[in-house]
């Protein structure tokens, strides 16, 4: 395999973990190069290089525009102009999906989505887990390159390989016309304390079994006691108990901590795809038939309102 492009995402001069994961895989497959739309490429070229990117193709600032139309146009133009990546890897993130989708249309080339594993078998074959991760579907492209993949976070392990800074190659930004008319006016970030949800060694998550929003503080307390991060199911995010940033699962974060503690969570397939990779899983649920028990290393059939306070008290005296 020749060149593999990786969609680079970054915030405040720090490369996103999904990007570093994709670079680790791209480097295994071929020559890894990053593609980046936004300001401050010089601030991230070192980190990209250290993770194996030899080059970073960068548009520079896209102003208040969204990445989707801007980066897809720039990439399509570069490809029309002779750049020939064999594969392009995107993370399954808001912007990753937008850019991949628009690029797919521009190149009239399909995107293979929800991939957790890639194998070069005379052409890349991607693995997508379906039916709640019980079945793997392996798909390959039959058309020409580039092969475009959307890859789920935490599928690969980021690895520093100590390369020098990636060399910055300008990627011209074409006129986007009407497609680029959406403008970001303001950005808001939720405050968070303690380790990041997708990096914490311990994650304690709560679900609808907590009964009411006020009870979520038990989850936060337990997470804090264990030096971990608090998570949630979509059910309680949709209900407005906690912000979306805490959601674990298919449409939320993928987490792989040493210990995941699921409290009052049924274990819907869309939740499980976000936490199944945890090294150890503890589940507390009053329903012995709850699907979460089928993947738990330690299952406690009981009431969260009794078990968690008792656990907090026991930990408090340590």
């Amino acid at each position, binding site marked *: 395999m020749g060149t593999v492009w990786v969609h680079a995402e970054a915030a405040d001069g720090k490369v996103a973990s999904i990007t570093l994961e994709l670079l680790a895989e791209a480097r295994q497959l071929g020559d890894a190069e990053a593609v980046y739309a936004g300001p401050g490429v010089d601030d991230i070229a070192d980190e990209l290089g250290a993770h194996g990117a030899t080059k970073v193709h960068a548009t520079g600032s896209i102003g208040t525009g*969204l990445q*989707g*139309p801007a980066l*897809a146009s720039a990439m399509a133009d570069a490809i029309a102009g002779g750049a020939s990546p064999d594969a392009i890897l995107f993370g399954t993130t*808001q912007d990753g999906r937008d850019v991949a*989708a*628009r690029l*797919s*249309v*521009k190149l009239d*080339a*399909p*995107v293979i*989505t*929800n991939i957790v594993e890639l194998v070069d078998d005379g052409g890349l*074959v991607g693995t997508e887990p379906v039916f709640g991760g*019980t*079945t*793997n*579907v*392996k*798909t*390959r492209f*039959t*058309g020409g390159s580039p092969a475009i993949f*959307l890859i789920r976070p935490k599928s690969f392990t980021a690895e520093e390989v100590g390369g020098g800074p990636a060399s910055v190659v300008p990627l011209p930004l074409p006129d986007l*016309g009407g*497609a680029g*008319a*959406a*403008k*970001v*006016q*303001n950005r*808001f*970030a939720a405050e968070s304390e303690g380790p990041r949800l997708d990096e914490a*060694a311990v994650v304690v998550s709560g679900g609808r079994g907590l009964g009411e929003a006020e009870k979520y503080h038990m989850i936060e307390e337990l997470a804090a006691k264990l030096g971990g991060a608090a998570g949630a199911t*979509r059910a309680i995010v*949709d209900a407005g108990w906690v912000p*979306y*940033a805490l959601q674990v699962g*298919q*449409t939320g974060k993928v987490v792989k901590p*040493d*210990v995941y503690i699921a409290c009052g969570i049924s274990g819907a397939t869309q939740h499980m795809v976000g936490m*199944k990779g945890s090294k150890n899983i503890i589940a507390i649920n009053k329903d*012995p038939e709850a699907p979460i*028990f089928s993947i*738990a*290393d*330690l*299952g*406690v*059939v*009981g009431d969260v309102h009794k*078990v968690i306070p*008792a*656990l907090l008290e*026991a930990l408090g005296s*340590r």
Partner: protein
Amino acid sequence: MKVAVCVKQIPDPADPGKIDPETKTLVRDTKLILDESDSYGVEMALQLVDGDGEVVLVSMAPNEEVNGLRTALAMGADSAILVSDDALAGSDALGTSKVLAAAIQRIEPDLVLAGTESSDGYTGTVPEMIAELMGLPSVTFAKEIAISGGEVEVKRQTEAGYDEVTCPLPCVLSVTAGVVEPRYPSFKGIMAAKSKPVEKLGIADLGIAADTVGWAGAGQEIVAIEPAPAREAGEVIEDDGEAYQRIVSFLEELKVI
């Protein structure tokens, strides 16, 4: 104002069907239902139009399926376009988007709504592909939408929080689950839905060639379908008031505490 809402009709998730090892397609033998993920788009459209305009559903589904469309019509949508064609079997996100974009083009809406991801396909790419095919701007992951003048103001969910994004009409928006509370169809709505117009089209009506959609146009093939290595269930205990102690000792074994 005219709003087009993309609604996918899917097998009941309670009975998700099986992949046929011969044809490598999903076998769906039950009636299809409205994807819950799209009930939010329908509700959002009804609220934005607020009786002063038109909500048109657009769906691509096999076998002229209308069951899910009737649910959305019963919620209050005015009419529907259904694209159904044997040549569409096996269509991927790009093929599906080509069909939906061509159908939407016919009605020239001011706004196109879709879900951020479908419950059974969850590629999360169809809305943005439709926008690109139609040359329109778009905002995905909308968790709040307001229209003022010829512009939408959207709160777009991000990893860290949200962005406030403005976008001129016409445009494509994908809405997250939980953005609004979908209404239940009333009895009156269900009765009225039976006589609401559903325009049924094939790909020829849309000027789409068979080899650009379906399996032929997908540009990909499934090479294997395998059972995934299963994670084993471990120890399960009943709480007798002392189960917390087992959790403590387990955390000790793992050296978390």
